[in-house]
């Protein structure tokens, strides 16, 4: 029996509209209204300036470790801006620009990176998941959200982010496979920033592109110049529209670069060359789109100052807010605290109270746990006899 070809060979499209030299392919230029172009630019600039401010705050010890986004503004804003407010955004941990676009207040993000979980709480009407740190594990959640949207008959689309390193994890593949089989309204955005901490893409995968991995799961994908806002946005609008009309998931590989550190605990000079970084700095997404707007007279000269003032106000508000109540840590583990957790909370409360009469009358933790107040208290047992006073059973 001869070997037969059962599938045509695949191809992967690469989309670039505005290249790093400022050349524009006007045939591919998406029809974006000037006001929207300004808004997209503002989103990128806010992402950049806030990121830089956070880096200084971290170096000063005013917030903790975080993952800077510098260089990935177009990949994030170009994609997230294709969503409606009623759509869902599922971030990993390097999506600050996208989060700001979705309405996360800067004070809240700062609070999160200052170590308070309160900062990770989405607003009640916000359809964003909180930051997810174990890479790729958020992707199956996005598939489940998209399944649920379909189940309920909502027309919501789910956009989920991950990086190039995440594409090596099992959850990436399980999520892609489920998304393909279930044909869910979803867009995977892979920010291929070339480095997973110190490991370059060529050690991460032997595939020519990340985009082609989606083809194996039976749904379309394309690779875009991730530093080209127009290309990312055009591809994202197309993918979101495809998902919304019921034609299933899409993967968009944004080829970009992390210009800064992996996190503030990382020293990238150890694993990559200055020349490489400089080459990518010349492809800076913000410079490129700013030039595009400048040519069209759409660049607001006072924008940077206005954004910096907005950031300064947020930092001041963050630092002026007092530390949240430590005992609030007991409020969100379960819908209702168990008796044991209630006792542990009381123990902490007593420990945290200033040394005074009330602190010394703290509840004793080895007392049997209390039932909730609406139930009758169990009968108190009499003081048990000491060992030796009790008659052994066998006698």
């Amino acid at each position: 029996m001869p070997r037969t070809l059962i599938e045509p060979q695949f191809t992967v499209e690469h989309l670039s509209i505005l290249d790093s030299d400022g050349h524009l392919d006007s045939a591919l230029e998406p029809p974006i209204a000037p006001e929207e172009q300004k808004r997209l630019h503002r989103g990128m600039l806010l992402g950049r300036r806030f990121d830089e401010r956070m880096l200084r705050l971290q170096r000063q010890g005013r917030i903790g470790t975080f993952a800077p986004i510098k260089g990935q503004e177009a990949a994030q804003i170009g994609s997230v801006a294709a969503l409606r407010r009623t759509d869902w955004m599922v971030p990993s941990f390097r999506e600050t620009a996208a989060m700001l676009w979705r309405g996360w207040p800067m004070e809240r993000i700062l609070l999160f990176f200052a170590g308070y979980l309160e900062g990770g709480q989405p607003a009640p009407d916000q359809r964003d998941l909180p930051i997810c740190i174990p890479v790729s594990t958020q992707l199956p959640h996005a598939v489940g959200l998209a399944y649920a949207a379909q189940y309920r008959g909502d027309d919501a689309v789910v956009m989920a982010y991950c990086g190039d390193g995440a594409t090596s994890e099992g959850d990436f593949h399980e999520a892609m496979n489920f998304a393909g089989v279930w044909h869910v309204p979803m867009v995977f955005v892979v920010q291929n920033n070339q480095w997973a901490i110190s490991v370059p893409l060529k050690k991460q995968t032997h595939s020519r592109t990340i985009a082609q991995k989606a083809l194996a799961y039976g749904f379309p994908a394309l690779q875009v110049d991730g530093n080209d806002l127009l290309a990312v946005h055009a591809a994202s609008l197309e993918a979101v529209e495809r998902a919304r009309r019921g034609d299933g998931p899409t993967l968009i590989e944004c080829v970009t670069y992390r210009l800064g550190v992996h996190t503030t605990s990382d020293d990238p000079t150890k694993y990559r060359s200055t020349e490489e970084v400089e080459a990518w700095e010349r492809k800076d997404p913000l410079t490129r789109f700013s030039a595009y707007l400048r040519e069209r007279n759409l660049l607001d000269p006072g924008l940077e100052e206005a954004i910096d003032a907005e950031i300064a106000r947020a930092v001041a508000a963050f630092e002026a807010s007092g530390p949240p109540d430590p005992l609030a840590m007991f409020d969100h583990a379960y819908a209702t605290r168990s008796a044991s957790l209630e006792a542990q909370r009381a123990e902490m409360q007593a420990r945290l109270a200033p040394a005074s009469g009330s602190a010394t009358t703290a509840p004793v933790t080895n007392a049997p746990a209390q039932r909730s107040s609406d139930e009758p208290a169990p009968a108190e047992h009499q003081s048990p006899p000491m060992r030796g006073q009790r008659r052994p059973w066998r006698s």
Partner: protein
Amino acid sequence: MAKLNMVKALNLALLQEMERDPDVLVIGEDVGVDGGVFRVTEDLHRKFGGTRVVDTPLAEAGIIGASVGMALYGLKPVCEIQFSGFAFQCFHQIENHVARYRMRSQSRFGCQMVVRMPYGGGVRALEHHSESEEQFYAHIPGLKMVIPSGPRNARALLAAAIRDPDPVIFFEAKALYHAAKEDVPDEIETMEIGRAHVDRPGTDLTLVAYGAMVRVAREVAEQLHEESGVEVEIVDLLTISPLDRETLVASVRKTGRAVVVHEAPRSFGPGAEIATSIMEGAFLSLEAPIRRVTASDLPFVGFARERANVPDVPRVLAACRETLAF
């Protein structure tokens, strides 16, 4: 009222909860057309269709991860992991996300879902089909861990687990699936999660057990009663976490003696937490050291040797006699 085995009783709970609440879904491997390898989801696919009774690709992390997303959206997935031995393929999803979403999102999202898994030995099965691994889940803050001991409480606890706003890991003893039939009321019945049940009142020794070990405990209690008039009190935990310390402590304050039985390996197992809780709450009542009768600290031993390793009536009986004679 119908006489049902545990499989049928669990099936009834799923059926009634799905009829009651359109947000309840069943999801897992072979749960649809096949009705589950143990038939717990039998006929649900026929009644509710493939969108609500979802045969998934063979991928545990995908099942749990996708269910997390569904739960965040407001659905109430009931996941089946075919055997608890395979749950390590999704353990990261359970520990990293199922247990933590309420905390991480500061109650913006709950993760109302149930993960059902058959667990335990006694069915002459292969590796990964016979283990008792409840201790892993009981140790994770943010989860509840439930193990019923018979058809009626299995049905009532599963219904309660489905309605619980927090995620519940629900272990079903394979050895009990077809072991016995009980009267199970036709109308919906639920039981409070987090409450142990005094299965047999007694005054001389507290025997703590759950799941398939409750059967062993009952036999031991009966034998001790018949041979020497000892009144054993059996505390059937039903919920492993949060542990009902109050019932345990009250029982041992009365009896002064305690033996804890479980199928899981001994070290760092549930018995350690149970014994410590008793010690903390009933120290001055204790007349003898608390004993544990458990499996040895070994990986799966092969089903041919399983009976020597898993607690049985003679071993528990011997431990009780020694405790009484101390």
